[in-house]
């Protein structure tokens, strides 16, 4: 089995999907000749040709909209938006059309498209390159929102997203792209798109996260383990539809929960997890649900990022508050 980093796993999944299904096309800015600014699409142009690996004009709204047209005409478009900060221009298309086409035509037309984008901060990039828009997309009816946190899950979830008959927004954690390698079987096997992953079992506390923050969350769980605290770590992975049962089952066991996201706090997806626990898990809770989030500020530029991002000490502080609550 090859040892792949996350962006290589994305690349393998794209190649596998294109190999297995001639309807799959990849489109976006610089995805062809250049192989994508993060090299997620490297080699695809050579293997599958410029008709299926499409360098587009610089038009995010067009790219999302044309993918809808392609999908309705029977293709399986996989869009790359260069950075999540530029995906806001696609919202008109995703909200008004991608998520509605099947319903509006009562199943006559459908929209099996994937819109991938690198998300999150701490990659020392310029303004607008550090956004975490998952809550914005998770609010859109009729779509799925997926945020992988490891090479193997990126591979399996992306294959599932491409095979899915409905639109999927696929949020890739940019700062994890090359952080580590792990063995990924290039077997074409998809993962379920409606299931959270329990990455570590524990009985004292539940830590919930998704995307890049899963990395810090696991580090915090390590630190807690050294203090004798057994934290259960859940990677939500698919934010929409949310696998409430896995989170509720964990909190039923632990009674305490910390939710971690780098997105701004208000109406963040952490708020949705907290609302689920308040609505369905109240009798399990032994402590208030802690949200560790970015501040309600503009995502700062690189020199202040460290003061914005949730980090292991902030997660640990929240975990200790939850553990100490009586």
């Amino acid at each position, binding site marked *: 089995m090859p040892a792949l980093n996350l962006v290589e796993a994305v690349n393998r999944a794209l190649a596998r999907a294109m190999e297995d299904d001639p309807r799959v*096309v990849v489109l976006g800015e610089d995805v062809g000749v250049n192989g994508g600014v993060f090299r997620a699409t490297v080699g695809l142009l050579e293997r599958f040709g410029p*008709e*299926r690996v*499409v360098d*587009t*004009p610089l*038009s995010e*709204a*067009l790219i*999302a*909209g*044309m*993918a*809808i*047209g*392609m*999908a*309705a*005409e*029977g*293709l399986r*478009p996989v869009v790359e938006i260069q950075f999540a900060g530029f995906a806001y221009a696609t919202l*008109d*298309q995703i909200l*008004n*059309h991608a998520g509605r*086409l*099947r*319903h*509006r*035509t*009562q*199943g*006559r*037309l*459908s929209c099996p498209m994937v819109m991938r984008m690198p998300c999150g901060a701490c990659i020392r990039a310029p303004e607008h390159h550090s956004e975490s828009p998952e809550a914005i997309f998770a609010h859109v*009816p*009729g779509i799925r929102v997926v945020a992988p946190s490891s090479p193997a899950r990126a591979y399996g979830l992306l294959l599932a997203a491409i095979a899915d*008959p*409905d639109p999927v927004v696929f949020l890739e954690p940019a700062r994890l792209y090359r952080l580590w390698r792990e063995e990924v079987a290039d077997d074409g096997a998809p993962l379920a798109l*409606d299931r959270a992953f329990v990455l570590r079992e524990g009985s004292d506390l539940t830590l919930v996260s998704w995307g890049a923050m899963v990395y810090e969350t696991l580090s915090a769980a390590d630190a807690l383990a050294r203090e004798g605290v057994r934290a259960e770590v859940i990677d939500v992975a698919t934010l929409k*539809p*949310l*696998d*409430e049962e896995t989170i509720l089952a964990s909190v039923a066991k632990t009674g305490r929960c910390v939710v971690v996201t780098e997105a701004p706090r208000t109406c963040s997806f952490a708020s949705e997890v907290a609302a689920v626990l308040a*609505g*369905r898990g109240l009798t399990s809770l032994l402590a208030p649900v802690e949200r560790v989030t970015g501040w309600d500020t503009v995502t700062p530029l690189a020199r202040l990022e460290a003061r914005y991002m949730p980090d292991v000490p902030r997660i640990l502080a929240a975990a200790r508050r939850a553990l100490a609550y009586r």
Partner: protein
Amino acid sequence: MSVVARFEVRYTQYLDERGRALGPLPEFARDPRALVPAYRAMVLMRALDAKAIALQRTGRMGTYASTLGKEAIDAGCGAVLEKDDVVLPSYRESGVLFLRGVAPHRVFLYWGGDERGNVFPESPRDFPFCVPIATQLAHAVGVAYAIRLRGERRAALAFAGDGATSKGDFHEALNAAGVWCLPLVVLVVNNQYAISMPRRRQTAAETLAQKAIAAGIACEQVDGNDAIAVRDVVGRALARARAGDGPTLVEALTYRLSDHTTADDASRYRSAEELAEAWKREPVARLRAWLAANGAWTKEDEVALERECAARAEAAAKAYLETPPPDPEQMFRHLYAQLPAAYRWQRAAACGEATEDACA
């Protein structure tokens, strides 16, 4: 200094305001009887439009966007579309859809507030009505790309209004269509108004057609009240598209003889004199005058057609009004190919089969 490029925009009109030929007509109009189906369709569009407004005014339909004045555009396009082409309408192209075979009561259903109005079993690849402005043009690029990728001899025909040409989506779509030489025709229905905003305040450009020049694609202006001219210009543009000779922007000049929708009052922003002037150029009387002058239409034909169209409008209204409202499950039925388990309780609650605390 030297001139590096020159451009021109051609304008096509065959019939004057009173239906007299201005010069030689295109081949398809040599036999005037060939235009009778288009005329019949235009009269039917007008009857259905009047019926829809009557239904709205009597509280039996929601807000409705009238098609009054654009019948020649819809009939001209309908005549040259092939079955396998794909139509991407805005919200004012019900006339085109009727000619695609879509049953009129479906259009009433749509404006009556029922999603089943966008189910077109008669033309299954055509897109639904599109209310957000110009967004359908991006879809049309994708449709045309798919057609070209598979090497098919088909084309996409997308509609937008004059206001749409001010949107980025319009320019992005034209630009991309040019880059990939796509089998796409974009038809701008220039009816002179985007709700209250007159064409002259929408852009400083002399024509809307010329906006295609910046995208490097073919463009033409056509008299949108002249069914022969529309059929000629759009027919040639679609033929070029299907043959792989690239996209075209067609600006069809017409006038919105109605309010923007039944929720609008156009007298707030345009004069009765202007409207009266526009009525002199309207398309239905023009084509009828030409057909009559060329021996292809009689008063008796007109009386019979009016009776027939009134009956069809009545039947459409009946079919619409007799369609039972959808059950609440419809909100969920086609939201996804298969409703995710996470939302099943919501469906049950909406259908009254469970209480909202069923989630707990």
